[in-house]
């Protein structure tokens, strides 16, 4: 059996206690559902000696409620719970229903999914495997095996909730011993595969806020995966359109599982006023393909992913417009 390195579980009873522990134990990491961090620990990807377990915060951080013009989602909502309870945001519920497999959806949390570490075929491997490879930029090495001569890690954001929440204009509430801040999700992610969020080491993502107006957006989530369960996305995307009298008022499209940061497709403002029809879907597909360049970081043929991307965008947009 693959064993875990010695790592101690700390069990705070409140958010305040949790962030203090994160501050006081250098290198400590957060343990929520454990579906990402535990395999990564077994692979020797972190030097962590302490895990701050959040199970004791479940009551505090497990809620779906509407308040102050926001749909507020507690960070410890399970993925499975959101697939059932987030029906007011159908694209989010749909994305959650398609994550991994049934057990992992019960264990995995919203906060954990948003903070999911980036993934790459050269990093999500055992210590032995990575040592045979000669390690890589993300951990223990100096070479990138995806981009020859690359200096910045291109491990891919592989969370399915992120593109949806980005397209819906969500923000996140982050708490640290120094206080709290609310950040638009679009400012949360960085283009750096080693650490792709602005989250500080003593900071905890406690809540996601989606503007209530997102409920009335035409929205859909699209995903490409090679196996129908127990798999990460080979591509995922979400679209949210504001449509009035058959015309597009605004549109947001986010594509991920490509690079370290989920990509909000740029320059879509000029689509306002266009009829919400197949041609706009076609146009969004064209632009997404132009702005996204799949790499070999995900073990699925990048050329093919590039070819399928516009089809997936077009179909997802069409689905959003149909509903």
């Amino acid at each position, binding site marked *: 059996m693959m064993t875990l390195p010695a790592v101690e579980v700390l069990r705070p009873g409140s958010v305040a206690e949790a962030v203090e522990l994160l501050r006081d134990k250098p290198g400590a990491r957060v343990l929520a559902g454990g579906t990402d961090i535990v395999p990564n620990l077994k692979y020797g990807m972190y030097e962590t000696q302490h895990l701050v377990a959040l199970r004791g915060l479940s009551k505090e951080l497990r809620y779906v409620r509407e308040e102050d013009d926001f749909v507020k989602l507690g960070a410890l909502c399970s993925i499975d719970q959101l697939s059932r309870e987030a029906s007011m945001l159908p694209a989010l519920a749909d994305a959650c229903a398609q994550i991994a497999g049934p057990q992992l959806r019960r264990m995995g949390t919203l906060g954990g999914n948003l903070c999911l570490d980036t993934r790459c075929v050269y990093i999500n*491997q055992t210590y032995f495997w990575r040592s045979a490879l000669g390690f890589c930029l993300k951990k223990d090495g100096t070479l990138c095996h995806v981009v020859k001569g690359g200096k910045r890690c291109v491990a891919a954001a592989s969370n399915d909730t992120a593109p949806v929440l980005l397209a819906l204009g969500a923000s996140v509430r982050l708490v640290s011993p120094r206080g709290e801040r609310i950040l638009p999700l679009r400012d949360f992610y960085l283009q750096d595969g080693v650490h792709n969020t602005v989250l500080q080491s003593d900071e905890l993502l406690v809540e996601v806020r989606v503007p209530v107006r997102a409920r009335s957006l035409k929205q859909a989530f699209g995903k490409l995966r090679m196996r129908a369960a127990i*798999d*990460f996305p080979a591509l995922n995307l979400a679209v949210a359109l504001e449509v009035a009298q058959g015309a597009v008022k605004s549109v947001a499209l986010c594509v991920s599982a490509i690079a370290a940061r989920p990509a909000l497709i740029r320059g879509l403002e000029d689509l306002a006023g266009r009829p919400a029809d197949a041609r706009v879907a076609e146009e969004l597909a064209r632009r997404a393909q132009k702005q996204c360049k799949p790499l070999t970081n995900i073990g699925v*043929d990048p050329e*093919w992913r590039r070819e399928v991307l516009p*089809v997936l965008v077009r179909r997802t947009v069409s689905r959003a417009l149909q509903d």
Partner: protein
Amino acid sequence: MSVGKRFPKVDGASKADGSGIYADDISLPRMLHAKILRSPHANARIRRIDPSPALQVPGVVATLIGAEMPEKYGVIPWTHDEQALATDHVRFVGDEVACVAALDERTAEEALKLIEVEYEVLPAILTPEDALAHPEIKVNERAKVGNITKQVQLEFGPVDEALASAATIARQTYFYAGSTHTPIEPHCAVARVDADGNLTVWSSTQIPHYLQRELSRVLGLPQAKVRVIQPLLGGAFGGKSDPFSLEFCVAKLALKTGRPVKILFTREEVFYAHRGRHPMKMDVTVALDREGRISAVDNKILIDGGAYASFGLVTAYYAGQLLTGPYRFGTYRFDSKRMYTNKPPCGPKRGHGSVQPRFAFEVALDEAAEKLGIDPIEVRRRNFIGEFVETVNGQKITSNGFLKCLELVEEASGWRTRHGKLGPGRGLGVAGSMYITGTAYPVYPNEMPQSGVLVKLDRSGRVAIFSGASDIGQGVNTLLCQIAAEELGCDPRDVTIVAADTDLTPVDLGAYSSRVTFMVGLAAREACLKLAEKLRVAGGANFTEACQRAEAIEGAPLAAAGGYRTQKLGGDYRGGTIGASPAYSFTAHVAEVEVDEETGIWKVSKIWAAHDCGKALNPTLVEGQIEGSVYMGAAEAQMEEMVYDQRGLLFGPSLLDYRIPTSLDTPDLESFIVESNDPGGPYGAKEAGEGPLHPAIPAIANALHDACGIRIRELPFYPQRILKLLRERRDKERAA
């Protein structure tokens, strides 16, 4: 009447309540846990190795290196080319180098990192083509010529003449990717040495007897001092039918420390142990005469063997020898070459050696028939070889229910009204196959029975069966109970099975080549018949009373033995005995697929599979074997492949990256049992565990052709490959 009934598995309840003991469930007092250090290089000389720093770690009890047991071994006696731990040469990334035993797994794992190994890295050979081109780079010193494990060239009849006069010829190159068994249970072994020096090894093995022989040889212990016990086995599929490094390591460490030792492979290590499907490149020519009869088949096969021989000698033969049914070949020639390469060794995966050429041939046959305008099912019917006939290469076919199989899947799939008519993106495809029911000869030549069964009757009415056979999930223990009930008239639930324990049970050669039901079944029946006669003479109101009266007459405990003795079979030429089998099973599949022509994404919606197993001793078990086989074949077509990088590093040795189908990826399966009642088999039975896998892949490929006019010749049928073929088809249409 018990045989032929849907009798639940005798070990079902203990598997259902979690109490059944698998190898890793064994825990002994003072037991140590060991871990194996592996080579990070695909090809390297070991210049120096020093395990002593590992011994300094608190909790480490012993280390082990190759020099302590350098003797080479291998499942086939002619190709001993493996060492439990390499002494001087590592041949693939993951090859075993050293071992540490400690109080717990983590300590052993951390201590491994302290072992000092100096390597001289050599260029690695990663493809069979490279292996041919660079004979000067030796992957494995056992190869007499270059890097060839084994080459077989055989010709039956004037192939070139037949080709010259053919009405049509389909000639193409096919590539079958390597895949691996992926039993859900990782390999595990536990060893203990008692105070008298008797060694016991519990191992997740399909071949307790061969393992006992190899342990004895490598460790230098008399065979009588080595006991191998196979606990419940969590899946095997051929992946546990070689002796493996962990078994030698736990045994040696137990001898060294005087304490029990366990090794449980990680999932990653299971991938390095491998012995899975050989990648094969096949240049196949199929010629039909004007009536659509197969006049010639010519196959040039290049086999990627990996770093060690395993069953490779047999693989090179099987790749050619097992193709000659269920159709009559006018003439036949094959040239197969298994190459050593610096990758984990390939071996016998379910349908050993013959799944790959079967794919190529069945697709080629479709293509040739299409040129003559003959329906795919019709061409298969027209070429049916018949019953009780000899194949072109001298194998004796007995019963043959292939036509019935074809008829069933034709009917069930609505072939006549649906093939070619399902519209764009949907299609049906058919394929057939033949497989052996056990290989005629043991892997080491001897005159002793291949299977032995002892049956003891107690005066309480309890029956005990001692059988060397490995129940690997296929249900042989249940069949033994049914056979006892059938012949003795006892309740099948009053039978105790003692199985696969080399001290207690008679030898059985192992659960490989689909031999178990046939050979063990005959041995068991023989033993039971002897006792049944005594019971008949004794009489009595019920079974228990009959036992008591018979024992009184006997004046001794009631027991009898039965055996399966090797029959002389096979063609009269060098290699003619390989592929010879006392009976052959036959299968036909129809697959239905749906293709998304914009993305290349496709799925198998359904597979109808009909299999001639001779006689279903337990239809529920036979259906399970058919469905499990079809699933595994479809999986190879859909998604499975062992992919390596340019260093010889296996991409993603995990169940996340090496994708096997979930319930949502598996096609709907409908199985049909055909009973041809073989005169040689127990109650007419043949095999069901491997044959039904074969047609799945070509049936799917042929269905993809029906759905969208493409011929895919390379596995797996990745959507990107489908999309590329669709584009080529459209380009061609546009040009025309």
